[in-house]
């Protein structure tokens, strides 16, 4: 409350003390509540723009390629991928960890920034949460399909198999099943809960019968009464409170897949925090990758997603990128300090072995490139921001590849060594998942409000019930 009233316009002339507590407005150009509803809804209600069809013309075929290759994989066998001995986990798990990590920024924005009362999150949380869901959809493909015989995937569900044997609940792989499916389910619930009041806005603006029916059903009869808001806000707070440990746990559990093994290079206690920081790092890069073009297309959104937002996200990228850089160096230090020859060798091979290019790409993209964000110039010029965040996007993929493939390629005994080479199916499936991600996101932009209207209205100065009254 005190924050909101601090942004309100004071009644009298400003004293020196007043000036200190006035915060910059979150929404620029004094946009009104009506404008917010009109503009955000008009994106959904207006004629489908040409660029949308053009973009879909690219992403839908890619999605079809992905689906066709998954059908090929199922009908032929997992051998169509380049996975081999010793590299039994390769692009499949690399891509799984890559996509699931991207999702983390959405949950961080929607949950952790909500709990810490970062009000600037309101204009980016909807799109970031959508990104989370679509990234988890892309991620989920890989663990489900890499088992080979997907019709046996029900073995993962907590029911006894044909021999009355139950799941091994002490296995990190089963933890992963629970963590990822819980993460997806809770993310859907959180996202949908946030959408209800905005779906009601779309319902109330509808002119055609079909839209009225669809949005009317989806809005669940929301009326915006305070007796409803009271439970709604509590539900939202609780979901934020539940999602916060959840998002930290998901990538921790993913890292347990590696850390609880005895493979040199994987068996380290630094993995959970290092994976979580990396996930947030890569996720914010993806948020910016998507939001900057979206705001360039819908220019008035710059009043809602301001340069200040971009600046803050760049700072988070800089922070998490530096944590990741610290983790890389600490891994190297412990590998040397631990005096375990296998551990030392594993890291030696990462940096100077056959996959040296992946390691140094990772180092450059994740540790060096984000350092540009120390300079305000690079944080506030959108073209530069967009270019720089492509490095974390690529770098986080390299990180997972380095951890997974290079480690497995150099096992304990040289007789077990081998190389991994992706097949065309590996490559096209991965490219196809970007098509799937893009298609889902384009559908989201077209049919759902991409900015959380009611939350943005709530951070306007006039939303404060004491707006315009004298300060006390």
């Amino acid at each position: 409350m005190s924050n909101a009233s601090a942004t309100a316009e004071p009644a009298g002339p400003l004293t020196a003390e007043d000036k200190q507590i006035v915060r910059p407005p979150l929404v620029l150009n004094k946009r009104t509540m009506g404008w917010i509803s009109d503009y955000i809804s008009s994106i959904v209600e207006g004629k489908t723009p040409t660029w949308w069809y053009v973009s879909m013309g690219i992403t839908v075929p890619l999605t079809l390629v992905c689906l066709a290759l998954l059908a090929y994989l199922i009908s032929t066998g997992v051998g169509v991928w380049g996975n081999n001995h010793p590299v039994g986990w390769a692009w499949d798990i690399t891509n799984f960890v890559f996509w699931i990590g991207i999702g983390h920024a959405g949950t961080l924005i929607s949950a952790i920034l909500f709990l810490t009362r970062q009000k600037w999150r309101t204009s980016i949380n909807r799109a970031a949460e959508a990104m989370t869901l679509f990234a988890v959809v892309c991620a989920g493909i890989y663990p489900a399909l890499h088992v080979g015989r997907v019709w046996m995937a029900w073995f993962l569900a907590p029911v006894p198999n044909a021999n009355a044997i139950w799941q091994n609940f002490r296995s990190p792989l089963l933890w992963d099943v629970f963590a990822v499916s819980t993460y997806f389910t809770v993310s859907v619930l959180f996202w949908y809960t946030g959408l209800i009041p905005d779906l009601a806005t779309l319902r109330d603006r509808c002119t055609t019968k079909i839209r009225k029916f669809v949005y009317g059903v989806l809005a669940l009869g929301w009326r915006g009464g305070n007796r409803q808001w009271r439970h709604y806000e509590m539900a939202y707070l609780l979901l934020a409170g539940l999602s916060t440990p959840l998002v930290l746990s998901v990538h921790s559990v993913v890292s347990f897949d590696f850390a609880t093994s005895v493979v040199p290079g994987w068996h380290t206690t630094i993995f959970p925090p290092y994976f979580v920081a990396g996930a947030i790092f890569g996720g914010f890069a993806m948020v910016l990758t998507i939001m900057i073009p979206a705001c360039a297309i819908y220019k008035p959104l710059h009043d809602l997603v301001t340069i200040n937002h971009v600046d803050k996200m760049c700072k988070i990228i800089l922070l998490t990128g530096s944590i990741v850089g610290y983790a890389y160096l600490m891994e190297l230090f412990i590998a040397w300090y631990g005096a375990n020859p296998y551990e030392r060798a594993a890291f030696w091979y990462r940096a100077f072995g056959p996959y040296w290019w992946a390691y140094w790409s990772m180092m450059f993209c994740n540790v060096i490139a984000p350092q540009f964000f120390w300079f305000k110039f690079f944080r506030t010029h959108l073209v530069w921001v967009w270019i720089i965040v492509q490095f974390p996007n690529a770098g986080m993929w390299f990180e997972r590849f380095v951890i997974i493939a290079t480690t497995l390629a150099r096992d304990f005994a040289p007789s077990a060594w081998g190389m991994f080479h992706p097949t065309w199916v590996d490559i096209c499936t991965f490219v196809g998942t970007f098509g799937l991600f893009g298609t889902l996101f384009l559908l989201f932009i077209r049919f759902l409000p991409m900015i959380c209207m009611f939350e943005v209205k709530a951070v306007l100065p006039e939303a404060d019930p004491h707006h315009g009254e004298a300060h006390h």
Partner: protein
Amino acid sequence: MNAVGNPTAPVYGIAAEFSCARDLYHAAEKIRDAGFEKWDVFSPFPIHGMDEAMGLKKSILGKFVFLGGLTGFLTAVTLEFGTSSFLYPLIVAGKPTNLYTVPAFFPVMFELTILLSAFTAVFGMLILNGLPRLNHQLFNWDRFKKVTEDKFFVAIEAQDPKFSSRSVRDFLESLGGQNITTIHGD
């Protein structure tokens, strides 16, 4: 006075429109002080401090969510110890099947606790709010569509023991409400 809905149907209540959050807030304080019970204020976004202005207590949802989370936790405990220690004890990776194996059970306990808590939070919220429903008497009033955009409303229900159309209308008028309208059912 204006009326909407089917005039022969029973009256749902009387509603008034306000143009800003501040006016709605002060109107709510006065309605609360006048001792009404079955009434509500409607706004495009949650208004800070409105619960106190209306004299409402904290939402009970948190207690339900605690029970939901407890159910999830106990489900995981039963599932894990039940299967691994009783139904089919199997030593894998040298881990015991008795109580000492509990650290390896924590992740699933945690995830199921979160999962059932989240389900309870969302569905509990909907149940407490009487949702989902496809229609409501207030939707008969065209102006009420602006509640999800930038207008604010108060509705005092006919079910309220203090309700009488004339006095409620005068009262809402004295609070500064505009477009005061009687809402009928369908």
